C-alpha cells in the first residue's frame, strides 16, 4: 500500500499547524462535502479559535464547460443548456439568453409573449427566493421555514409543469417568443396562487422577522458597504441591501417590465438581516408584478417571425437581466454562422461570491455559514 | 474481616501523597506536574475528612477550603502554562528556567 501522502507531496501543501493557540492558526476545510455550503463549494478557512482570519474559495467542482459547449451548438440547441446553470431559477436564465439572441437577430418578441415571460420569470423569482429562505434559515438553525417554503414553492413548480412539462429545468422560452400558448386555466391558477401566497409569506416572517435569535444571528453579520459592493461588482439583493437602488428591471427595462409598477426595496446597513428583508419585500413586489401582468395580458401571437435557420449578422451583443440573484448577463459574439463564436455568461452567484471574504473577515465560523447562505449562491452557476 | 478504621484511610492518603510527590519530582510535562499537585491536595483532603470523623466537622470545612484552593491553583497554573506555551512553544518544566521572557 502506498502512503497516500506521497501523491500529495508534489502539491507542496504546507503542513497545517496542529495546534490552535492564538500564536498559530487553524486551517479547516469547509466543504466540498459540507451540509451548509450549498452543494460543492469548498471554503478554506483560516481561523484563530473561532475567528475567521481569511477565506479562500475553491470552486470548479461542478464545472461542465457550458460556455464552451455553446460554441459547438446552434443558437437554438444551446437554449436548454442555460437552464442548467442556475437550476433554481432556470426561467430567468432562459429569458436572458433568448433576449440576448433576439437582440443579436434584431427581432422583438410579441407583447403577449413578453407578458408570459414576465409572469413566469417573476414566479421563478418567488421560487428562487423561497428556496433561498428555506436553506438560509436551515443554515442558521431554524428547521421549520424550509418545509413551509418548499410547500409553497411546489405550487409554482406545478404551474411550470402544467405550462411546459418540466418543473426545474423548464426551457420555457424560445428565441423570438414562447413555444407554447398558455394552457387552459393558466390565469386562474396564477390568480389562485396570488391569493394564497401572501398569508404564507406573512407566516415565514412571523417565524423569523421578529425572532430575537434570528435578529442576533443576522444583524451586523456579514456587513458590506455600498462602495465595496460596487468595487466587487456585487449585484442583486446583496447590492440593494447596502442601500444602492439598482435594479435592471428599472434601469435598463427589458421584456414587458416598463409597463408595470413596482418598487425596488432597499436596505440601509448591508447586513444579513437587511438582505433578508430585501428579499422578503421582493417576493411581495414580484406578486404585485404578476398580478398586473396576469390582469393586463394581451391577446395576440406568442412567437415573432424567426428564420428557421438562425444566422445572426456578424457582431456582438451584451444583454443583462435582473435574475433573482443579481445581474445575469450574456455576451454573445456571432461570426455569421449558425453557431455562436463565443458565449460568455456573467453569473450573479459567481460575482457575488467574491464578496464572501470581505464580508466574513474578522467574524466567527458560524457567520461564514450565515453569509454563504445570504449570498444565495448556486454552485451550478458559479462553476458553469 | 478487619473492620475499617481511620488508620486505613490515613494509609491510603499517605500512599496517594507519595504518588503525587513522585509525579511532581519526576515528570517533565507541566500539565502532569499540576495534576500530581492535585493528587497531593486530594491526599490531604482524604486525611482531613478521615479525621473529621473523630473530631467533628472542622476537617470537612477545611477540605472544602482546600478544594477552593485547588480550583484557584489550577486556574492560575494553567493560565501561566498557556502564556508560557504561547511564548516558548513547549510545556516542558526543564525549559522553564527563565524568570522573564
Amino acid at each position: 500500500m502506498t502512503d497516500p501522502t506521497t501523491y500529495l507531496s508534489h502539491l507542496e501543501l504546507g503542513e497545517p499547524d496542529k495546534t490552535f493557540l492564538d500564536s498559530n492558526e487553524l486551517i479547516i476545510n469547509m466543504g466540498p462535502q459540507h451540509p451548509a455550503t450549498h452543494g460543492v463549494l469548498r471554503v478554506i478557512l483560516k481561523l484563530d479559535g473561532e475567528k475567521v482570519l481569511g477565506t479562500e474559495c475553491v470552486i470548479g467542482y461542478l464545472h461542465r464547460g457550458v460556455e464552451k459547449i455553446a460554441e459547438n451548438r446552434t443558437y437554438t440547441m444551446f437554449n436548454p443548456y442555460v437552464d442548467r446553470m442556475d437550476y433554481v431559477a432556470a426561467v430567468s436564465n432562459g429569458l436572458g439568453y433568448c433576449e440576448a439572441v433576439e437582440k443579436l437577430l434584431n427581432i422583438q418578441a410579441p407583447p403577449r409573449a413578453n407578458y408570459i415571460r414576465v409572469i413566469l420569470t417573476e414566479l421563478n423569482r418567488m421560487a428562487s427566493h423561497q428556496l433561498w429562505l428555506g436553506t438560509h434559515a436551515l443554515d442558521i438553525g431554524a428547521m421549520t421555514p424550509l418545509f413551509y417554503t418548499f410547500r409553497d414553492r411546489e405550487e409554482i413548480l406545478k404551474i411550470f409543469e402544467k405550462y411546459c412539462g418540466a418543473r426545474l429545468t423548464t426551457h420555457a422560452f424560445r428565441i423570438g417568443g414562447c413555444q407554447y400558448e398558455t394552457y387552459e386555466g393558466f390565469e386562474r391558477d396564477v390568480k389562485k396562487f396570488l391569493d394564497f401566497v401572501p398569508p404564507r409569506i406573512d407566516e415565514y416572517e412571523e417565524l423569523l422577522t421578529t425572532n430575537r435569535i434570528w435578529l442576533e444571528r443576522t444583524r451586523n453579520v456579514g456587513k458590506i458597504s455600498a462602495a465595496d459592493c460596487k468595487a466587487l461588482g456585487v449585484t442583486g439583493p446583496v447590492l440593494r441591501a447596502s442601500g444602492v437602488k439598482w435594479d435592471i428591471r428599472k434601469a435598463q427595462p427589458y421584456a414587458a417590465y416598463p409597463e408595470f409598477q413596482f418598487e425596488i426595496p432597499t436596505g440601509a446597513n448591508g447586513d444579513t438581516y437587511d438582505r433578508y428583508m430585501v428579499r422578503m419585500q421582493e417576493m411581495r413586489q414580484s406578486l404585485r408584478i404578476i398580478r398586473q401582468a396576469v390582469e393586463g395580458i394581451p391577446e395576440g401571437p406568442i412567437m415573432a417571425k424567426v428564420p428557421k435557420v438562425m444566422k445572426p449578422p456578424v457582431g456582438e451583443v451584451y444583454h443583462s437581466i435582473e435574475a433573482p440573484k443579481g445581474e445575469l448577463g450574456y455576451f454573445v459574439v456571432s461570426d455569421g454562422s449558425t453557431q455562436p463564436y463565443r458565449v460568455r455568461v456573467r453569473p450573479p452567484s459567481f460575482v457575488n461570491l467574491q464578496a464572501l471574504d470581505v464580508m466574513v473577515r474578522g467574524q466567527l465560523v458560524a457567520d461564514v455559514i450565515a453569509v454563504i447562505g445570504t449570498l444565495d449562491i448556486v454552485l451550478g452557476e458559479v462553476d458553469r | 474481616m478487619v473492620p475499617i478504621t481511620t488508620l486505613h484511610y490515613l494509609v491510603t492518603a499517605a500512599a496517594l501523597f507519595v504518588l503525587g510527590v513522585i509525579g511532581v519530582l519526576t515528570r517533565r510535562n507541566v500539565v502532569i506536574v499540576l495534576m500530581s499537585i492535585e493528587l497531593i491536595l486530594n491526599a490531604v483532603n482524604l486525611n482531613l475528612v478521615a479525621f473529621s470523623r473523630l473530631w467533628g466537622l472542622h476537617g470537612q470545612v477545611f477540605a472544602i477550603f482546600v478544594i477552593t484552593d485547588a480550583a484557584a491553583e489550577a486556574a492560575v497554573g494553567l493560565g501561566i502554562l498557556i502564556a508560557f506555551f504561547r511564548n516558548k512553544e513547549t510545556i516542558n518544566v526543564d525549559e522553564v528556567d527563565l524568570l522573564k521572557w
Partner: protein
Amino acid sequence: MTPVATTFFFYFLSGLTLLSGILVITQKNAVHSALALILGLLAQAGLYLMLYAPFVAGVQIILYAGGIMVLFLFVIMLVDIERSQKEEQFNKQWLVGILSAGALGGLFVLVYTKGSSLFPMTAGIPAESNNTQQVGELLYGQYMFAFEIASLLLLVAIIGAVVMAKKRI
C-alpha cells in the same frame, strides 16, 4: 442510610484511587493521565461518602471532576500534545525523586505506627442526615472570615488567569 459491605467498598475504592494515582504519574499521554485522575477523584468521592461526608463528596464531584478536570482537559487540548509525547517523559532526577518520596512514605508509616495511640481508631458516627447543614453552619459561623478570604482568593485567581491567558494586555 447505613453503608453496605463497608470492607469491600473501602478496599475497592481505595485500590481504585491508588491505581489511578499510579496511572496519572506514569501515562505518556496527558489526556490519559487526566482520565485516570478523574477516575481517582470519583473513587475518592466514594470514600468521602463512606466517611459520612456527603457534602464534601458532592463538592468533590461538581468542582473537581466536573470543573477543574474539564479545565485541565481544555488546556491539554490547546497545547501541543503530539510533540511533547515524543519527548522524554521523565527527567533525570527520577531516581532521586523516587528515593526521597519513598523516604517520605517511610516517615508517614513511622508516624502512624508510633502515633496511632494518640487518637481513637473507631469513632462515633456523626449523624449524616444534617451533615450539609452542620458544614454550612461552620462555614458561615466559625469560619466566616476564612470563607471570605477564600472568595477573595478565587477572585484573584480569576483575574490572574484572565490576565495570563490574554493575548495582549
